[in-house]
């Protein structure tokens, strides 16, 4: 059952991500990305990480994607503009784009080659099951070993919030 679910979720994640990149309409891209996040969340459950699966749905699909959806609807730009102008062609024309395609294909091949040369490892070293108290352990470690990083994160979020408000504010002329 685990094996079958893994392949299903993996296929959904890859196809949805490919369509996110391939779509012309950003609205469809955002909705497909939510599907991809759902599949990844299923994979996290299979990996015995229900906490990550839950925050994946709540934070990513629930909060970040709604923000994206909001901006797509606000700007109401349904499709990509054609490339115009000399400078735009210089950096966005066919040549540089082809170079970008070659570079990303190179990265894919390189990653695949590197991972193929790894020896096959089982899902877990030894045969320990994921502990039933994983969420309890995460909470304990988060507020003991990682307490400083946690507090720093809250400052980061505050700075991002203030920055977003200032950047998106309409300037008074």
């Amino acid at each position: 059952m685990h094996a079958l679910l893994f392949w299903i979720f993996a296929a959904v994640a890859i196809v949805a991500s490919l369509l996110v990149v391939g779509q012309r309409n950003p609205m469809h891209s955002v909705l497909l990305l939510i599907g991809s996040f759902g599949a990844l969340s299923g994979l996290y459950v299979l990996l015995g990480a229900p906490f990550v699966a839950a925050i994946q749905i709540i934070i990513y699909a629930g909060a970040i994607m709604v923000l994206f959806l909001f901006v797509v609807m606000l700007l109401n730009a349904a499709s990509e503009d054609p490339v115009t102008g000399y400078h735009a062609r210089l950096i966005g024309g066919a040549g540089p784009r082809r170079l970008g395609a070659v570079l990303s294909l190179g990265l894919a091949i390189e990653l695949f080659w590197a991972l193929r040369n790894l020896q096959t490892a089982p899902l877990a070293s030894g045969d320990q099951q994921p502990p039933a108290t994983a969420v309890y352990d995460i909470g304990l470690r988060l507020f003991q070993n990682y307490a400083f990083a946690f507090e720093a994160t809250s400052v980061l979020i505050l700075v991002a919030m203030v920055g977003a408000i200032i950047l998106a504010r309409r300037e008074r002329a």
Partner: protein
Amino acid sequence: MSWVPEPTLNSYLILSAVLFAIGTAGVFLRRNLITILLSIEVMLNAVNLTFVAVDRYLGSVDGQIIVFFVMTVAAAEAATGLAIVIALFRHKESLNPDAFTSLRW
């Protein structure tokens, strides 16, 4: 269900690499600021999958905590990134990154 190959750590790592490559291709190939930000989210998620898979392999929870931090950073990045996109769109009525070639206006 013996006809389905059992997933190993390598399957998860290869899946994550494929997703990361898709995200990179999106950043390189698309000419729409919102799609580029979405591709960055795909890449962040690929890295998260690696963290959780290796976490399962090692039997620890540290990777899941790092995933938590990655998600908060992703939220901060999306908020400021989208605010910049809105500010840029106000000036040029365009989402094409190639439209913004001047250092000041």
